[in-house]
């Protein structure tokens, strides 16, 4: 089933970590195999923030394997060496969990594609997000568990999207959890509720064009599909509109960039979405109770129609 939620404050920052936690926790009955956050925090914009994992947290049904911490340490060492070879200086390092790391990098990245390919050529290493504002945090469990584990409730920023997952198409592990980074674009993330039926056809075409897939989760296709459109010069909104015909199946998804948040709904309107829109805040989720967690007062909300695409700026 899965639940998605997102919000964007326009003209100000807020405690988006705590707000998104409340929204996703309200949707936990839609799935709590894993929960993921894409938070756009307030930063000085100088350094890149790289969230990456060197191992898996594995649940039932996953094809991934749980490994010894010493393996994670070894992989981390190789990542550090590779960064040094590329001239990237680690300004700040956080290791929240043995398999999950956050680096702030002083690095003049010319090509994120080449950078990412080198890092991810290290076996067992996956970049969860790369950007000057975006941080993707995802793990097994419900929203509160993940929020507590990674201390996300104090994150201040302008916008965020998140996902409460009931695994149906792929394993219960971090690599299949949402949000997906719009590789190799800085600060692009995607969450999705639905099923895509032309996943393999699109995947083959996109892989032939040099795009990368890390999981077998159909939702990853949306991130890669839009990233490829943007690589070819399309705007976010143009890429999303193209997806309405390019992607087959049922879907409601959100895409966020450094300064914008967008939603798209398939032409059959098969997946739910409730939307609240005002001059200073847009909040949306699979169910109204998600919005109620940040706006308990009486408000006007509505369901976007079939085939609708909307994009908001901060």
């Amino acid at each position, binding site marked *: 089933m899965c639940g998605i939620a997102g919000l964007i404050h326009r003209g100000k920052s807020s405690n988006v970590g705590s707000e998104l936690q409340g929204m996703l926790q309200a949707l936990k009955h839609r799935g709590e195999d894993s929960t993921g956050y894409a938070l756009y925090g307030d930063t000085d914009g100088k350094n890149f923030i790289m969230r990456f994992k060197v191992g898996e947290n594995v649940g039932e049904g996953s094809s991934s394997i749980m490994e010894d911490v010493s393996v994670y340490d070894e992989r981390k060492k190789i990542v550090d060496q590779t960064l040094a070879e590329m001239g990237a200086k680690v300004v700040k390092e956080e290791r929240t969990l043995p398999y999950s790391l956050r680096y702030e990098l002083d690095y003049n990245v010319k090509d994120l594609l080449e950078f990412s390919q080198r890092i991810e050529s290290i076996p067992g290493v996956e970049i969860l997000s790369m950007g000057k504002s975006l941080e993707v945090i995802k793990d097994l469990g419900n929203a509160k568990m993940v929020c507590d584990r990674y201390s996300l409730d104090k994150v201040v920023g302008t916008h965020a999207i998140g996902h409460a997952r009931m695994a149906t198409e792929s394993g219960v592990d971090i690599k299949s959890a949402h949000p997906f980074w719009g590789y190799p674009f800085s600060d692009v993330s995607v969450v999705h509720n639905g099923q895509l039926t032309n996943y393999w056809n699109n995947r083959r075409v996109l892989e032939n064009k040099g795009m990368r897939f890390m999981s077998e989760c159909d939702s990853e296709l949306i991130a890669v599909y839009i990233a490829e459109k943007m690589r070819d010069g399309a705007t976010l909104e143009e890429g999303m509109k193209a997806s309405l015909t390019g992607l087959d199946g049922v879907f409601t998804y959100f895409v966020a960039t450094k300064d914008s948040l967008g939603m798209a709904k398939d032409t059959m*309107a098969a997946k739910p979405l409730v939307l609240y829109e005002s001059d200073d805040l847009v909040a949306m989720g699979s169910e109204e*109770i998600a919005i109620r967690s940040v706006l308990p007062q009486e408000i006007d909300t509505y369901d976007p129609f079939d085939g609708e695409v909307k994009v908001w700026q901060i």
Partner: protein
Amino acid sequence: MANLKTVSKKSKAQSMGMHTEVLTGRTQQKFFNPDEAENFYYFGTYDVDFNKRTDLDVKDMTAPEANKEIDNLMSQGYGTIVIKNPQGKHSLGVGILNKLNLIFEGSLGYFGMGSCDGPIVRINGRVGWSCAENLMAGKVVIEKNAGSCFGAAIRGGDLICKGSVGARTGIDMKGGTIIIGGDAGAFTGFMMQRGRIIILGDVGINLGDSMYDGTIFVGGEIGSYGSDAVDAELTKSDQDWLKRKLKVAEIGENFDVSKMKKIVAGKKLWNYDNLEPTEKKGAI
């Protein structure tokens, strides 16, 4: 109370060795008799006084707790209940088979007012997916917007949304009337079998797709017609009925109903004559 009797004459299925078990036990079935409408009641329903009014704050209640409390208040004779702080909770007000004035001061989540038979409901907010699913009688008025599958499979009653509604409004409806003050999404009236839908605004693609019967009236633009949905002539009696209904619904009283489009089933998809023998053959 209906009596269950053992049928002495064997049916064909029984003669083939099937369904031979003896029916025992009691039934609580009651059958509606129009001559006794005033005295008709469901098992487990209550005599209520519409002038006896109370508030119920459900902010800190779960949906089952809130529904149980509504039932408890009805058992005490309250005929007008105002629900405070529904806050988008799912499944509120379901399964009410009583005459009752129910007012929600706020919005409902999914499946609100499902399987009801008789209450008059006003929701001063929005409703989520599948509002009033399987409504049998009564009136439900939503002051703001509604989600998808609005009035799915309703059999009777009036379901009114003053704002706009999502996709698949009136899917599989078997009777009653749905009235929309704003726009409606895709697949409105999908596989509807009876009843009427009135939309004052625009409607999305595949209107009335695979509808068996029933009528859809549209005041605005139509995205596209669904399979076997066709235009029909808007008669004088249609217009009179529309005016009456819109007046009762408290919306569009000045709406020019003479310009509305009427959509019905083309009945080209009807194939009962072909299917029935096949099913009989399969059963034998």
